[in-house]
Structure formats: structure tokens, C-alpha cells
């Protein structure tokens, strides 16, 4: 009986691997194609016969792409930091403090999550233009902070809730001020969660397309998604280069996400999130 069960599991494992390979084929194809000489990607043999790093080399020499990489790093890091600076105190207040309007604030933050980008992009562009914040890193950072704020607050709220209140109460009884109880007791316990949530905010900014597209008109201020799109129209045939650009965007996101997966999955499932 047991042997039969093991054989069945093995069979299902095979089915699982096949299904996953089929499901992940496009992603695998990007990675594989990025290491092939460009002419081979479209038109060469189906499976690679020659591998090269040349696509990554020409990407590194592609000035607009390098600028975009720097912009994306700047915008992503700043907006993740900004989101955390706002989300940590908010999540703390929403879970640990009772105050009038708490429910309202919580609902408001949650509803912001559901506001579709395409609906607010028009008024946002009009507003940002009149403030002179289009084509500026600051403008995009502010907007990306708002994009990730609802989900960062929501996720952090779950983590704060998981820390027993008794720990902070004990610190208060021992004569700590509230600030001390938070910074000495609560925050150290939250560091892994804060890091995971900050990473998630970075990832959201890194791949964001619509707002970056709408708030940016000059090449100097483009972020990576726009730069990859630029590669496509600029060198229509250079598939190897485009695929290498795709890997540069997707790889850090995938690695970071796999790293913080355990922290995020539960919160995402209960919160729902922008894809």
C-alpha cells in the first residue's frame, strides 16, 4: 500500500513538473534567449547551440538603458524608504492605539489600494504638470510611495498584530516611555517584516509602468520598464538585447520575491494586492 502511494506521488510529481515547465515556459524562454546571439533568437535553431554574454555587454553600453537603471534604483529605493517611514507609524497606530476615526482611516487606506491607476492618471498628470513635478524623480517617488502605501500598511498591520502586546506593556511598567517601548521592544521584533515589506515596495516601483509612462516625457527621466519598451521600438529586430533587458528587470524582482516569499504570501492572500 505504502509503496503504491509513493509511486503515485512520484507520478504526480512528474505531472507537476511538466505542468510547471509549460506554465513557466515564457519566463524560461526570456532567460534562455538573453544568452543567445541575437540572430539566433528569432530564426535560429529552436534550442540554443551557441551561448553568449554579448547582449548584456551591449546593454551595459546602451546609454539610455544605463540611465534608466540608475533612475529605477533611485526611485525604487527612495519610494520604498518613504513608504516604510509612513507605513510603520501608521500600522502601529492602527493596531495598538484606540482613537476616534481609526476604523475610517483603516478603511480609507484599504480602499486606496483599489483605486485603479488608469482612472487617476489623468487628473494626476494635470496636477503634477502644474506643480512642475513631471519629469522629476521626486514626482515619481511620491506617486510610487502612494502606490505601495496601502499594501505596506496592510501587511505591517498583520505583523504588528502578531507581536504580543504584553511585551510592550511590560516595558511600560518597567518605566519605559512609549517611544522607548516601541523602539526598543517592538521595532527589533519587526525588522524582518519591515525589510520584507520595504522590499515589496521597491519591487512595486521597479516594475511600475503606467504612472512612469505618463509622468515622464524625456529620456533622462525614464525608468527601466520604459527603457525596455524603448529597446523594442528602437531596434525592432534585436530580440537578444530586449530579452537581456527583460532579465535585468525581472531577475532582481524574482530573487527578492523568493527571498521574502514566506513573509508576504499570507498577508497578500488576506489583503489582495495589485499585480
Amino acid at each position: 500500500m505504502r509503496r503504491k502511494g509513493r509511486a503515485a506521488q512520484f507520478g504526480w510529481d512528474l505531472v507537476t513538473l511538466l505542468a510547471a515547465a509549460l506554465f513557466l515556459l515564457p519566463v524560461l524562454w526570456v532567460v534562455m534567449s538573453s544568452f543567445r546571439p541575437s540572430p539566433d533568437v528569432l530564426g535560429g535553431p529552436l534550442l540554443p547551440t551557441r551561448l553568449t554574454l554579448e547582449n548584456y555587454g551591449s546593454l551595459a553600453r546602451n546609454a539610455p538603458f544605463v540611465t534608466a537603471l540608475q533612475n529605477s534604483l533611485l526611485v525604487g529605493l527612495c519610494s520604498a524608504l518613504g513608504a516604510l517611514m509612513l507605513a510603520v507609524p501608521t500600522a502601529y497606530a492602527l493596531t495598538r492605539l484606540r482613537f476616534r476615526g481609526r476604523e475610517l482611516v483603516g478603511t480609507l487606506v484599504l480602499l486606496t489600494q483599489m483605486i485603479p491607476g488608469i482612472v487617476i492618471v489623468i487628473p494626476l498628470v494635470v496636477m503634477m504638470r502644474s506643480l512642475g513635478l513631471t519629469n522629476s524623480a521626486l514626482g515619481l517617488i511620491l506617486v510610487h510611495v502612494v502606490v505601495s502605501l496601502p499594501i505596506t500598511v496592510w501587511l505591517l498591520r498583520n505583523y504588528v498584530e502578531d507581536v504580543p502586546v504584553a511585551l510592550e506593556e511590560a516595558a511600560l511598567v518597567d518605566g519605559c516611555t512609549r517611544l522607548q517601548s516601541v523602539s526598543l521592544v517592538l521595532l527589533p521584533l519587526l525588522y524582518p517584516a519591515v525589510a520584507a515589506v520595504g522590499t515589496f515596495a521597491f519591487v512595486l516601483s521597479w516594475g511600475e509602468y503606467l504612472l512612469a509612462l505618463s509622468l515622464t516625457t524625456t529620456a533622462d527621466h525614464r525608468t527601466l520598464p520604459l527603457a525596455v519598451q524603448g529597446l523594442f521600438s528602437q531596434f525592432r529586430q534585436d530580440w537578444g538585447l530586449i530579452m537581456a533587458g527583460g532579465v535585468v528587470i525581472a531577475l532582481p524582482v524574482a530573487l527578492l520575491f523568493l527571498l521574502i516569499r514566506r513573509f508576504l504570501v499570507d498577508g497578500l492572500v488576506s489583503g489582495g494586492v495589485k499585480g
Partner: protein
Amino acid sequence: MRVTLARPPSTRGRPRGERALPYLLVLPTLVLIGALALLPLLYGVWLSFGRWDLLSGQGLRVGTLENYARLLQDSDFWRAFVRTLWWTLGTVAFQVIVGLGLALLLNRPTFVAEKVSALILLPWVTPFVVIVYAWLLLLDGSGGVTGRVLAALNLPPLSPLASPLSAFVTVTLISGWKGTPFMVIALLAALKSIPAELYEAARVDGATPGQALRFVTLPLLRNTLVVTGLILGILAFYNFDLPWLMTAGGPGEATTLIGVAIYQTFFIDVQPTYAAAMGTVMLLVLLVLALLSLRLRRAT
């Protein structure tokens, strides 16, 4: 002195600084969300009642229903609306079917299932730009995988994106594929919470594995399917990135979803107030869906 953090009876009677603290903590978040999400939202609705001809250089004049009168008669818009509904339905149907299959396969305590559960997230975490170019390459009618299959079958090198119906179906399926991992992780979480005793009891009662799936598993997954389907449906309904990057709304109007229509009306036709009116209609749909999802979430 007794200090309670979690559920103090009320804020009254506490020192002033203590009473202001929660507001000071949430204020920055509220200001930013207010300024860059809620204000644009209201401003968009306000714009939708206005006339603003950017080309003639006249300023904004608000207080007209003409955008809505035009919208009601705009058959292009309503076709895009219906198209977006089909798109949403197709996307979610794909996610339910494929997501359920994958989740059932992955809900086994084997090494392979565990590793694949992590990797399966890749399409979901990969930005749309990359997904789009991956599929454009695969679907290329001459040298892509599609092209090779067609050549092997002695068929002409046609891309599925070349004709309106097949383009719509193809991009809808890709939309479903991109969001499926989210459905899978939600279903896996739900599957793991089903107590093993239920299956034990079903087996004792003589149920086959198929019957256990139908009468134990599926009914218990229903709530997750509905709530996750709704979230993914909302995301699909408002998607702009995929149809815009992949086909720019074409061929013809085949993949012009409302999101694409709004973008074109604003950035290409330069009719800000008319685009804002389209956005306001979408907002109404969102309102209905948001209320529905809040209600469902409360019910589960």
C-alpha cells in the same frame, strides 16, 4: 499605574500628548494618500463635468453634462466596455480553471511540489513589460515557437495577434496566465487549512478521491475562489499595461479595453475632460465591485 495599549477604553482623560499621538502617526500617510490618490480621484470627477479645449488654449470651464451626453451615444466606448467585461470574465475563468488544477497538484507534501510552489509565482512577480516581450517573441509567426509549429504543419506564418478575434482571445489568455499564480497561492492557503479528518471521514464513508474532491474540497474552496476571483477580476478590468504594450489596442479595436481607450483619449486625442468622464464611469463600476468585495470579505 495601569497602561493598556491594545484596547484602552477611550482616549478621554489621558494626557493631551497621548491623545494626539495616533493622529500624528497617521497624518503623513493620510496627507499623501489624500493628495495623490483621493484628490486626483475627486478632481477627475470634477473634470468630467467640464470642457477643456487644450488646443485652442481656452481654460477649463466646469458645469456641463456634455461629456456624459456624448458618452451615452459613443458606441466605440460601449463596445470597449462590453469587450472589457468579456476580457475580465475570460481572465478569471482561466485563473479559476488553471489555478485550481495547479493548486491541487501542488498541495502535496513532496519536495517537487514544494519547490514548484515557489517558482510558480514567477509570472505574477515579473513586470508586465517583460511578460509582453516574452509572449511577443513566442507568438511571432515567422521565427517564434508559434511560427515553427505553423511551419511544421505546413501553414502560413501567421501570428495569432494578427486577426482581431484571435488577438483578443490570445491577450485575454495571457492576462489570465499572468494572474494565475495569485489564485494558486490563495487556493493553496485554503487547501492547507482543510482538516485531514474530513478526508478521513469521507474515505471511511466510502468516497472515491474524485468524490472527496467534489463533495469535500470544492465546497470548502468556494469562498476563496469567489473572493480571489473578484480581486483578480478587478485587476483585470482596469488593466492597461498588457493590452497597451502587447497590441496597443489593436488590431483595429480588438484589444481596446476601457483602460486603453481612456489613455488614448487623454494622451493621443488630447480630450482630458472626455477621458475623465470615461474614468468616472469606470469608477462607478469599481464602487460596485469594491462594496461587493468588502461584503464578501466580511462574510468569509
